[in-house]
């Protein structure tokens, strides 16, 4: 489509997209500050250059907070989708800081969290699993005759796993209303995509499952939105499962501890020029979808929200050690260490 097309989106929606993009980046940048201050537990994952994929895709779904909307399974690189689905910024920071006040109460890391009312289910680390889970979730939509659909994100590397295949094939055969978003950022940790798959584009994988597939420039939030909107319409209309590839580039290391020495700096430079946020900003101004003032206001608002949220969450308490025994079973307590009781008796 032409640079001028807003794909039918109104000014408010175009601004909302910009807010979601900048929020993603600002939240992650704030995390880096928190990490330097020693507040972050474990690894820190950035989506720099990939923000438009998550935001554009999630924006095309029906988001509700009463358990009737579409359903999302995000990855650690899809914070933008999570925010659009109502994931709270505070919870984002709580999770990264392993706070007892966070949705997993310090038991699980970063974006690995859940809200079935808002309609999202966070990942587990073993790659591929969430396609199986989302196949089951969307199966229930079909079984119950609900109009809801699901969306699951995964990186290019995850496509090598058996879980990816078993989940996608099950969904395809059962006509589960599910869209698989392949975040093809050209790397899986240090491994280039061609060492994970021999296909040139993940769209080639669709026919192998008998499903429709699209591939889209993942740095163009409006293109992504439009592609996914059309895919979602087909899925909702009963076509079953589809796949959408997002093409972009992981501009930082796998996690903050990875200096990505294995990446040609020229490539990074090239992709910096295609920054999804800067690009969209320019386009908005060029097409007069927003004024400089409006955009600056959004940026400032988002920056402040992140600063304030982070600052308040830092103060929140860590979980209480002994709470580690709860919630292994719904109906049983697991034993506390006998060596920590008074008196200590086996």
């Amino acid at each position, binding site marked *: 489509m032409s640079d001028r097309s807003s794909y039918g989106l109104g000014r408010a929606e175009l601004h909302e997209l910009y807010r979601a993009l900048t929020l993603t980046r600002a939240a992650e940048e704030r995390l880096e500050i928190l990490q330097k201050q020693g507040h972050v537990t474990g690894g820190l994952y950035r989506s720099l250059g990939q923000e438009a994929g998550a935001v554009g895709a999630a924006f095309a779904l029906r988001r509700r907070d009463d358990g009737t909307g579409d359903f999302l399974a995000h990855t650690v690189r899809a914070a933008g989708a999570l925010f659009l689905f109502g994931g709270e910024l505070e919870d984002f920071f709580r999770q990264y800081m392993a706070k007892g006040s966070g*949705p*997993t*109460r310090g*038991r*699980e890391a970063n974006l*690995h*969290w*859940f809200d*079935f009312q808002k309609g999202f*289910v*966070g990942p*587990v*680390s*073993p790659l591929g*699993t969430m*396609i*199986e*889970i*989302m*196949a*089951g*979730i*969307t*199966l*229930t939509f079909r*079984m119950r005759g609900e109009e809801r659909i699901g969306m699951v994100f995964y990186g290019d590397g995850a496509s090598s796993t*058996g*879980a990816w*295949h*078993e*989940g996608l*094939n*099950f*969904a395809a*055969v*059962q006509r589960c209303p599910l869209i698989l978003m392949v975040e093809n950022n050209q790397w899986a940790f240090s491994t280039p995509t061609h060492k994970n798959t021999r296909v040139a584009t993940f769209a080639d994988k669709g026919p192998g499952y008998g499903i429709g597939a699209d591939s889209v420039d993942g740095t163009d939030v409006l293109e992504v939105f439009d592609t996914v909107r059309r895919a979602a319409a087909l899925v909702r209309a009963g076509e079953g499962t589809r796949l959408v590839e997002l093409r972009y580039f992981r501009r930082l290391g796998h996690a903050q501890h990875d200096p990505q020495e294995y990446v040609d700096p020229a490539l990074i430079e090239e992709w910096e020029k295609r920054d999804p946020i800067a690009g969209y900003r320019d386009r908005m101004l060029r097409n007069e979808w927003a004024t400089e003032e409006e955009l600056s206001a959004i940026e400032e608002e988002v920056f402040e929200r992140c600063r304030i949220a982070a600052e308040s969450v830092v103060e929140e308490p860590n979980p209480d050690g002994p709470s580690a025994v709860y*919630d*292994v*079973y*719904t*109906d*049983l307590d*697991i034993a506390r260490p006998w060596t920590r009781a008074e008196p200590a008796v*086996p």
Partner: protein
Amino acid sequence: MTVHTQIEPVAGPEHLLKTQRGEPVTMLEAISEALFEEMVRDESVFLLGEDIGVYGGAFKVTRGFLEHFGERRVIDTPIAEGGFTGAAAGAAHMGLRPVVEIQFMDFISPAYDVITNYIATSLYRGAGPMPLVIRGPVGGGNRGGPFHSQNVEMAFFHTPGLKIVYPSNAYDAKGLLKAAIRDDNPVLFEEHKGLYRAPALREVLPDDDYTVPLGVAKTVRDGSDLTIVTYGAMVHKSLSAAETLDVEDGLSVEIVDLRTLLPMDDDAIVESVKKTGKLLIVHEDTRTGGIAGEIAIRVSEKAFEWLDGPILRVTAIDAPVPYSGSLEDYFLPQADDVITAARYLAAY
């Protein structure tokens, strides 16, 4: 959301209403009835598995279910134990209560990842309860070879968050399976295929909606000289050994049928050991890393003073399950092994 419907006499395929008619059932039929009654009672219960629909399952446990409940609730899956067990977990998130059949439990291994890492940890990770049953045939003695004969409890016994059930008879199988389906935690349910149609296990079951609580063992034989802790098919080899020991040696053997392996009923074990002072553990599964070890250390922790002899075990040997009858018979623990071990311990 779970919808509880009234229990009342239902219509259904003839062969699933034997108990309603007061007729005896095999353990397999008891399992079918449990599934059938739960599906009638609660429409959130549904089934997934290979060949469970038109074929009724490799062992015919779900024969007639597709016709009665339709394709929506009886789903023939692709051959993807990980995929459909994961899908079941997703459905459980949405408030359904899936029951997964693994055609032979040996083929649960592709689902090892999703069971241990996703399903068992769901509640702990904040993703809520996981009412999910994974059931299927286990056990040797049927000349099935290394991949149609395994017991799988020890692959999962070390997984916090799971429950593991392994019934030895029709009554327990029905009541435990109903309890498992109603449980809000994931339950692995092992059915010994050698017991499925064993004529000696046919019995008339109560025609009410009984359940057998998970986590409670049962003393299936009272005795005073020696305790045998066992489960599944070995309950019957142990009972037959106990008869011989009674008749030939005048030994009084108490037998505790664990029924649920995880969580384990420590109290029942400890109480019996305190009475007899001698403990023999019998399991069909291979030896090293078998459940006998965990039982032994719990008894050591809780009843050391009461032990009048070493805790011993009778088990399969540490090998894959061999195919030929002569090898498999050697591989498996036999009633004679139980007799020899009990005599040794009694004389200790």
